[in-house]
């Protein structure tokens, strides 16, 4: 089963809704979604509050042509596709090690499986989930 994610144009209106990126910088060269290793910086809740990614580093990669990979305590993976400007993902499966105290791996998996859109601003990625009411902020240094 695939969840549809619409690739958003970087409009101020959308950003205002999500509160994900601070501003659009046309100075930046935006990274591609696929390829780099994205590290979760924070989770943004429905009320706009931002929380830390937990005690374990959470990493996300979109690996061409279609592999979606995430890593926390476990190695999770699924599929993604971009067609006609639409992005879709499958449910994530993976290893089943016990979670460290304070780990937010389950939150990450839930976010990715329920994502509805994303935006990229330079080296920052914002993935929206639950009808754009929530988001995760990620960054890449690659």
């Amino acid at each position, binding site marked *: 089963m695939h969840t549809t994610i619409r690739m958003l144009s970087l409009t101020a209106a959308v950003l205002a809704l999500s509160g994900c990126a601070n501003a659009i910088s046309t100075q930046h060269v935006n990274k591609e979604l696929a390829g780099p290793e994205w590290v979760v910086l924070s989770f943004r809740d429905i009320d706009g509050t931002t929380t830390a990614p937990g005690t374990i580093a959470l990493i996300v990669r979109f690996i061409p042509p279609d*592999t979606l990979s995430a890593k926390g*305590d*476990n*190695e999770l*993976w699924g599929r993604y596709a971009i067609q006609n400007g639409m992005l879709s993902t499958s*449910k*994530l*499966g*993976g*290893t*089943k*090690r*016990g*979670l*460290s*105290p304070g780990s937010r*791996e*389950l939150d990450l998996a839930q976010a990715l499986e329920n994502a509805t859109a994303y935006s990229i601003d330079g080296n920052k990625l914002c993935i929206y989930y639950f009808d754009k009411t929530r988001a995760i902020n990620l960054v890449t240094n690659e």
Partner: protein
Amino acid sequence: MIITSTGTRLCSGALINNTRQDLTPFFLTANHCLVGNPNTWIIMFNYESPGCTNINGPTNQTISGTMTVANNSVSDFALLSLGQRPPGSYRTYYAGWSRPNIPAQWSVGIHHPRGDIKKISHDYDPVVSSDYEPERYLPDSHWKVRDWDQGTTEPGSSGSSLFDQNRRIVGQLHGGWAACGNDLPDYYGKFSMSWDYGSSSSTRLRDWLDPINSGPSTLDGMEGPPTEPTNVVITNPNQIGMSPRLSWSASSSPHGIAYYQIFRTPSYYNPLNWTIIGTSTSTSYTDFEIVINNQSSAYDRFSDRVAAVDTRGFSSNPSGLPYANVWGDPIFGLAESLPDSVTAVDAPAAQLKQNYPNPFNPRTEIEFNLQNRAHVSLVIYNILGREVARLVDGVNEAGYHRVAWDATDQPSGVYFYSLTAADLVNTRYMILLRYPC
């Protein structure tokens, strides 16, 4: 369940049997569980509800320290050696295994989802040969449980064993999509691939689980050692001049207890040099090498422990604290101590009966039985170990023999009578009790 040094309930796993069937504590889990330092891990056993209700289980049955002896990522297995064999009181089971690449007709997973008490998941359909993450793992390296019919797995279940319809391990959990509320699959690294993968003992199971190279395709599981005897006490600590009598609560084993071993150390302050001083098929033993005194001195103090041996020959750990302690004088070198009942499963070459009457004044009778014709000596010793009478010293025919001893010229006290026949020495004691005129 594997617990890390920081307390994370990391993964599941199972004790696994080997062809030597010697209860070597090998523990099968998943390769991807090898994070941190396994030397500091704690393996927790029997973390399970006592009944069908979801009640928390004991957390005190643990073994500390493990060492990885073999692992590979292809079938995602890791074989650990535990720091010590789990004691009999844990009532462990060393699981059997099946290495043919044949799908189980139905399967069972035993695991600790989210570090919770033990859960048992059932799939009533055959497993399917499969790859797992095709970009990373070899084709047909895993068994796929298409969907669990009862229960499911979660984080913390990794490494748990998958059992086939014959209750033998056929794989260990790598990962999957199964979770509460869905009918998605799980993937178990194949035992058949783990068995012989790679070119060295560090990447395969074969060398560890078939150390005698006997080549079986399957091996059944086996129970762990018997439980330790408990409540070991001296029942007559104040009977000066008598030998201390030990008693204890019986051990248990599904295979039955063959006998108990009695250990003694000569110093209360140095309870390290434990020596086996005898055996008993009952739950009591009289130590004829000691005579109880009233010294109350640490130098005269002896401590005893008891271990159980089951009919397979596996021994429990010796009983723990508190030890059974007694003040007494050693009579070392006099004779070998005897169990209260004969230990051998087969009929012994010679049996020495308790004298009758006992106590006596001044005459008593001693009976012994010989399996075969043998040279026999039956000697009486006093409490100081001096021979006071030699009742028999010659060849005797097989069968029962009865000998009388008249102790008219001996003072009251404890006497030992020792039968030597066919290289077997049996000793008992008796009491001469003279009445005042």
